[in-house]
C-alpha cells in the first residue's frame, strides 16, 4: 500500500470515529438525564481523552520528524545525482532527463519568474515527492527513486493561465542500465 492510500485509510478511520461519536450522542440526545451527573462523567472521560491525544500526537510527531524529513539546504550533496530545475511560465527546464534508480538525486529547484510547485509524479500517476520553486531562492530536494520508469513533473502552485499545462518528463532507469544524457 502506498503512502497516499495509508493516509486515506487513516483519514477515513478518523472521520468514521468522529461520525460514530456524533451518532451515539444524537441517538441519546432525547432521553433527559441529570445534567450534573452527565457533566461529571464526561469531564472524567475527557482527562483520559486529552491524555490519549497528547501522547498520540507526541508519538507521531517524534516518529515523523526524526530524522528530519527535509535534507540539509546549505550543502551540495557529494554523492547524489544533481539535477538543476528551473520553472518559468509555463515550462520546466531540467539539466538531466535520465536518472538512475537506487542512487540519491538532489534537485536544485528555483524559479525564473513566479512561484511554482515542483511535483514529481511516478509511473502510476501518483506524487512521489514535491517542493516549491520560488524566485530568488533554491530549494534542495533529496529523493532516491526505487522504481524505474517515466516520471512527470507537474506544477502544483498556481502560476497563471497555462498553469495546468506546465509539465516535463524524465526517465529513471535501473542502476546498471543508466548512462548520463
Amino acid at each position, binding site marked *: 500500500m502506498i503512502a*497516499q492510500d495509508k493516509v*486515506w485509510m487513516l*483519514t477515513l478511520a478518523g472521520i468514521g470515529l468522529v461520525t460514530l461519536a456524533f451518532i451515539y450522542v444524537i441517538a441519546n440526545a432525547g432521553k433527559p438525564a441529570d445534567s450534573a451527573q452527565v457533566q461529571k462523567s464526561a469531564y472524567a472521560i475527557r482527562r483520559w481523552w486529552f491524555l490519549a491525544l497528547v501522547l498520540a500526537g507526541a508519538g507521531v510527531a517524534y516518529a515523523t520528524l526524526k530524522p528530519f*524529513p527535509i535534507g540539509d539546504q546549505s550543502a551540495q550533496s557529494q554523492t547524489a545525482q544533481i539535477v538543476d530545475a528551473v520553472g518559468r511560465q509555463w515550462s520546466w527546464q531540467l539539466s538531466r532527463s535520465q536518472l538512475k534508480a537506487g542512487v540519491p538525486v538532489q534537485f536544485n529547484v528555483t524559479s525564473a519568474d513566479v512561484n511554482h510547485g515542483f511535483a514529481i509524479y511516478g509511473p502510476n500517476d*501518483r*506524487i512521489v515527492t514535491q517542493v516549491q520553486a520560488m524566485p530568488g531562492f533554491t530549494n534542495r530536494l533529496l529523493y532516491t527513486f526505487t522504481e524505474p520508469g517515466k516520471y512527470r513533473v507537474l506544477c502544483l502552485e498556481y502560476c497563471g493561465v497555462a498553469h495546468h499545462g506546465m509539465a516535463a518528463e524524465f526517465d529513471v532507469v535501473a542502476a546498471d542500465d543508466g548512462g548520463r544524457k
Partner: protein
Amino acid sequence: MSATLPVDSLYPANEALSRAERIVVNLYVISALVVFVLMMLLGLTMRMGQSTWLEVPPDVFYQVMTAHGAGMVGTIGLASSVVMWFFLRKYVRLSLSIFAANYALFMLGALAILGSVFIGRYAGAWTFLYPLPVHSMGLWSLNAAALFMLGYLLIGVGFLLFYLDAMLAIIRVYGNLGRALGLQWLFGGEIDKSHPKTVVASTMVAITNSIGILAGAVVLVMCLVNIYFPSVGLNALLVKNLTFLFGHMFINASIYMGVIAVYELLPRYSGRPYPISRAFLWSWASSLVMVLIVYPHHLLMDYVMPHWMLVMGQVISYCAGLPVFTVTVYGALTNVYRSGMRWRMPAKLLMLSMFGWAAGIVPAIIDGTISVNRLMHNTQWVPGHFHFYLLLGVLPMVLALMYHVIGERAPSRASDTLTFPLYIFGGLVFVFAFLAAGHMSTPRRFAAHLPQWLAYDRMGAIGAALVITAMLVFTVQIVVGLLRSPGNGHPAHAVG
C-alpha cells in the same frame, strides 16, 4: 419531538433588534446569502469545467477561481461577523455605525474585486501570491491587479474598524483584554461563572484577526508599491509568509466568530447549562497563540524556510486540534447528550457545524505532517479538508443564527425534513470527491484534468449541485423570514 420552548429563554429581551439594527443585520444576512449562492455557482462552474460537462476556457476558469476564492473567504468572514456582533452587543456597547461602515466598506471592496476579475480579467487567485499579480503574461493589466488589492484593503479596513470598536467596548467593561479573556483564572481562583464565553471568543478574534489583517495590509501595500515602482523588489519568501499569516488568520477567525453561535444557542435548545470552565479559558488562550504561529504549515514545501518554523508548523497543527476535540466539540456533545434536545432547525445546524469542524480537521491535521504534506500539498486534498469545515462547519454556524433570528417567521418547515438532509448529503459527496481525488494526487487549481481524474470531478459537480439546491431553499426561507413584518414574528424577538 419538538416540545414547546419557553420564549424568554430562547429569545432573551437583550437580544431584541431595534429598527436600525434590524436593517443593518438584514443587509448583512441577505447580502451574504446571495453572494454565497453566487459563489457556489462559480464553484459548480469550475467542477463542471473539470468534469468536461461544460466548456470553460482556462482564462475564464482561473478568473472564476479567483472570484470564488476571494468571494467565499470574504463572505464567510462577513457572515460570521454578524454572529459575533449579534451576541457580543449583549455584554458590551458596540457601535452600530461602525458595524454598518464595515458592511459598506466590504461592499465597496467586493465591487473593486469583481471589477478587477470580470472587467480587468485579473486571475491571480485569492492568495495574490507575489509576484504573480505583476506577471500576468498579458492576461490582465497592472491596474487590474492593483484594483484587486485595493478591494482587499477596503475590506480589511472595515474589519479592522469592527475589531477595534469591539476591543474598545470590551476594555470599557472588563478593564483590559486579558481580563476579558479570563487569563486571571488560568492558574487558579474561582471563575466567575457568569463571564460570557462570547466575550472570551470575541476578544481572541479581535486580537488575532487584527494582527492578521495588519500583516495583510503590509503585504498589500508592499505589492501595490511594487506594481507601480517595479524597481522596489520584494523578498518572495517574506511576502509568502505574510500572505499566509493573513490568509490563515482571516479564515480561522470566521470559525472562531461562528462558534459563538454554538456557545450561545446550543444550551437554549438542549435546556442544559453550558458553563464556562478553566479548560475553556485555557483552550481559547492557547488558541490565541497557536492560530498566530501555526501558519508555517502552509509553507512546509518551502525548504529554505528556517527548519524550526517548519517543525513548529507541524507540531502546532497537532496541538491546535486539542482545543477543538477536547473542549469545544467535546463540550457541545456533552451539552447535548441525554439533554432532551429540542431539534429545531438552528439546533440541527449547530450540531452539523460541530461535526463538520471536527471531521474536517482530521484530514487537515494529517496534512500538517511534513512527510504527508510532501504527497498531498496543493492536491485536491486541500480543498477537500477546508471545504469540509467551511461548508459543513462554519456555514451551518451562521445559518443557525439566521434561522434562530427568523424564528417562527420561517415560511415553512420543509427545510427541517427535506433540505437539511440534502445539504448534508450533497456536502459530503462534494467534500469526499475532493478528498478521494487528492489521495489520487489530482492537483488543485487545474483548469483541465487528466481522464483518470474525471470521475471525481463529476462526483464533485453532482455534490455541488445538491448543496446549491439546498442552499437556495435556505436562502429563500431566511430572506422571506427576515423581510416579514416583525409583528408577524416571534413576540419576544423584534422590537421597533
